[in-house]
């Protein structure tokens, strides 16, 4: 059998894999009004009342300071940890304490860092894990 005859079979397998992954993503998508920060659940309003406000890029982005949020939620020796921000779609990014000092959490539960590229803008955050 010529290699090119394998093409339709491979194409079918790809469509099945991609469709299966789409169903998996849809089924595992989290919907919650709260955020799990350092093992404790908070609403976004509770977090905004806890931490200091922060503004980035000449007031383009407003929110609360991620480093202050970690301190207020009980993280000790913060520079010894890394922080994983996870979205409802399971997109996650791990950052250092230095990054957290340049980051904010918006009211829409999105992370923005002045020292990191757009790929670190995790949308609809459901968990901030301290490692």
């Amino acid at each position, binding site marked *: 059998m*010529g*290699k*090119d005859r*394998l*093409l*339709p079979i*491979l*194409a079918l397998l*790809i*469509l099945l*894999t*991609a*469709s299966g*992954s*789409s169903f*998996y*993503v849809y089924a*595992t998508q989290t919907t919650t009004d709260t955020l799990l920060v350092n093992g404790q659940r908070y609403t976004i309003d509770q977090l905004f009342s806890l931490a200091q406000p922060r503004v980035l890029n000449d007031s383009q982005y407003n929110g609360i300071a991620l480093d202050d949020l970690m301190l207020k939620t009980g993280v000790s020796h913060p520079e010894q940890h*890394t922080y*994983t921000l*996870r979205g409802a*779609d*399971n*997109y*996650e*990014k*791990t*950052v*250092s304490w*230095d*990054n957290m000092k340049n980051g904010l959490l918006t009211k829409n539960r999105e992370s923005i860092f002045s*020292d*990191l*590229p*757009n*790929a*670190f803008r995790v949308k609809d955050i459901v968990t901030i894990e301290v490692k």
Partner: protein
Amino acid sequence: MINKKFIAGIIVFGSLWGFAECIIGSLFRDANLPAGALMTGIFAIGLMTLSRVGFRQPGMQTGIGLVAGALRFFNPFGGCFMCSAIAIMAEGLLFDLIWTGFSLDSKKTQSLTNQVSLGIVSTYFVYVGGYLVTQILTPVFSSASFHLENLIAFIPQILASGLLAALIGSVSVPVVFSVKRIDLALKDRLYYPVTIGVSAVCWGIVITNTIFIVWM
């Protein structure tokens, strides 16, 4: 001996792809359209298929990716532009490997089933490959460093996101094969002026756009 026509082909196709990534891709993103899938499914796969069917030369798409990626360096906007440039280069290499791996240059004509299948396979692998390269390189080039667990957790989304690109590719590749049947070959005396002119226009627009954005 260097085939000048082949080199000119690499430059013009690479310039068109790079121009599309820098200018048209930005317009798609601004309009909240699925820019990645559209860019890969229509422009990247369309241009690479057209060049491969036309020249039947292994290695050409790697060169096209290098030229398109180089042009992306001149448009330093939209996140990690260096990662995007490297991802474009990787996409060219992947296309080349798929086409060569399936020995598709040996047949002059392909059945419609094979054209559609080729569209799905090449677009999906090129899109997912480019996506993976970007996900790995962006943290590497940033101060946050790469964490494998972040990538593993997002693999199902990456595999799912390639579906739209693959479906677009299943249409664009047969369309390119149909276009190729119409004889679009340029007369020899027009070949170099047209390829050099088109390439120069693409580079000129991208560089002017960059200067315009930086100064404004």
